[in-house]
């Protein structure tokens, strides 16, 4: 029964007025900021996605013509449907993000579990080691893989030196390199929520299950795994959603045919200077992501309520 949960009663008094004004001030500053710089921009993107490109500054037609008539068009969206490039890029983005999320889960889950079960004294150090790469430059960590995966990179040189191969394996500029890059960059985002879920889980539960005759792997499958599902979902969303729109990794590690929607949007905008189509791509990307984002939001609210 904490004060935070108190609702506003109908009666009003001096105290209520003071609180309301103080509180109003505190919440309205960040509120207005976010409305102006986070929500309003989406409305503008939507507006421009309905405009036609022109060669001017800014390079699109206004929503209302000089005579005040509405001149919206869904041509840009139809264009996305007609040109298979966009459909392929969307599907490819989803595929790459999905597979990378799975890879993150496969590598991250045992790590999170291992950290959660390690002695308290070294647990924080291990956790710190997970977070540490996150504090160093993302761009440079992707760049590191360029040096490793290149034809005359670390892996190929090593394998050739060992005599395993005579010809370098083509790893750069492929979907494979993108998987590696995304998995590598987003792994901490998977481990942290997983760790939080697993750490909360009392080891007594597993011991109780084993005491009741459950074999260790079965205890894991029936006790630990189901109870860590919230962590799995949270981690997967934290990896999947931004990975779908990833730009840096496909443009540095991917090949010319590994299309991802973030890169298409970038090229549309910077290369073709077609702002309306870029906006339409962004809106379509948001539509694809709206379900996972809402799921993420609901999880946040539920955690907050718990």
């Amino acid at each position, binding site marked *: *029964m904490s004060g935070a949960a108190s609702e506003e009663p109908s009666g009003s008094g001096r105290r209520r007025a003071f609180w309301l004004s103080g509180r109003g001030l505190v919440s309205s500053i960040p509120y207005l900021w976010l409305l102006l710089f986070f929500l309003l921009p989406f409305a503008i993107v939507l507006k421009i996605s309905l405009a036609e490109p022109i060669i001017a500054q800014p390079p699109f037609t206004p929503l209302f013509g000089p005579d005040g008539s509405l001149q919206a068009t869904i041509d840009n969206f139809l264009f996305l449907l007609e040109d298979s490039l966009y459909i392929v890029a969307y599907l490819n983005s989803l595929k790459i993000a999905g597979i990378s999320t799975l890879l993150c889960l496969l590598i991250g889950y045992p790590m999170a579990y291992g950290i959660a079960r390690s002695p308290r004294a070294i647990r924080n150090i291990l956790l710190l080691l997970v977070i540490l790469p996150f504090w160093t430059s993302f761009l440079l960590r992707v760049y590191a893989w360029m040096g490793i995966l290149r034809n005359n990179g670390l892996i190929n040189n090593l394998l050739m030196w060992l005599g395993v191969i005579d010809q370098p394996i083509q790893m750069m500029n492929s979907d494979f390199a993108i998987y590696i890059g995304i998995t590598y960059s987003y792994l901490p985002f998977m481990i942290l929520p997983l760790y939080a879920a697993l750490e909360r889980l009392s080891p007594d539960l597993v011991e109780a299950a084993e005491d009741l005759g459950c074999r260790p792997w079965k205890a894991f499958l029936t006790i630990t795994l189901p109870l860590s599902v919230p962590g799995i979902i949270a981690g997967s969303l934290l990896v999947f959603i931004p990975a779908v729109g990833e730009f840096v990794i496909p443009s540095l590690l991917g090949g010319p045919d590994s299309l991802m929607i973030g890169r298409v949007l970038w090229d549309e905008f910077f290369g073709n200077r077609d702002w309306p189509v870029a906006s339409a791509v962004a809106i379509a990307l948001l539509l694809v992501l709206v379900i996972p984002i809402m799921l993420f939001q609901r999880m946040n609210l539920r955690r907050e309520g718990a």
Partner: protein
Amino acid sequence: MTKWRKPDEVPFLRLEGVVKRFGDFAAVDGVSLDIYRKELFCLLGGSGCGKTTLLRMLAGFEQPTAGRIYLDGADITEAPPYERPINMMFQSYALFPHMSVESNVAFGLKQDGVARVEIRRRVAEALELVQLGPLAKRRPHQLSGGQRQRVALARCLVKRPKLLLLDEPLAALDKKLREHTQFELMNIQEEVGITFIVVTHDQEEAMSLSTRIAVMDRGQIAQVGTPTEIYEYPKSRFTANFIGSINFFDGKVARSEEGELTVTVPDLGRDLHVRSTRQLAIGSDVSVAVRPEKIVISRDPLDLPNSVRGKVRDLGYLGSVSVYRVELENGALIKVSAANTRHSAEREVDWDDEVYLGWRATSAVVLTE
């Protein structure tokens, strides 16, 4: 008689029809209560009975949905917490972790703009009162649980509030310390002469600590009275059950004369006699309630107005007392407790013994519900 029984005594704190709703749920549902100067008043009840919400409304953290609160004649219903002459000792103690003991205690005085010399003197005095003088420079995390509790108390007392609210003051202490602290709390209250309102779920604590108790149930006050009144003359099954344990016999009033009721209990197949001044219609439904320690247990027939036969089903030896569960002929189980005053040479009542249970007409109470 105690002074809050004087008819001309003016209540110090008065609650009038106080209601607090959270959405559809009424946490406090129409509480009216008078509390007098220098009382040590307990709000007693299980979790979720509304006692903490009531306390928080007194402190000013919650606003009543309806009703008024008056302190010393002034309406304080809408006063913010920082303007009430009331202080609260939190269950978690809520000491400021980044301040020393001294600064914690001085905090309230600083808010009131008391002169520095005066603050120093009063803080020293308060720390003396709770015997924490030597620990003034420590931080809260450098203190034991009992010491923290005393800092929290000193922090409230130093402001000389008109009313001190204590939320489960002893809950965080271990058993031994709790007993000691309980008496210390009573002594301090006597010394400073401030009215205390204590919220607790522990009936023993409430019984030994308070001048009066309000037993709360589902947002309402079930009964208000001195510890003796509440224990000896519970007004409802809830109160009777909540404080101590008790046996109930359901029946109908058969006769009512000269301050004595005769109640027919179909389950027992016989009548019970209860002394009561209450006027009850013949045939109305009542329960006869008897405390286990008021029942005499014997292997020989008893010469008492109420007597039943049964068989000992269960027996617990607790040192100074033994607790029996006796199965009556109709299958009902009766709890009986008896002091172990007999000599060991005598054969005691044992498992499966046929026994007689008996009690006086004055030992039971009649409850209508």
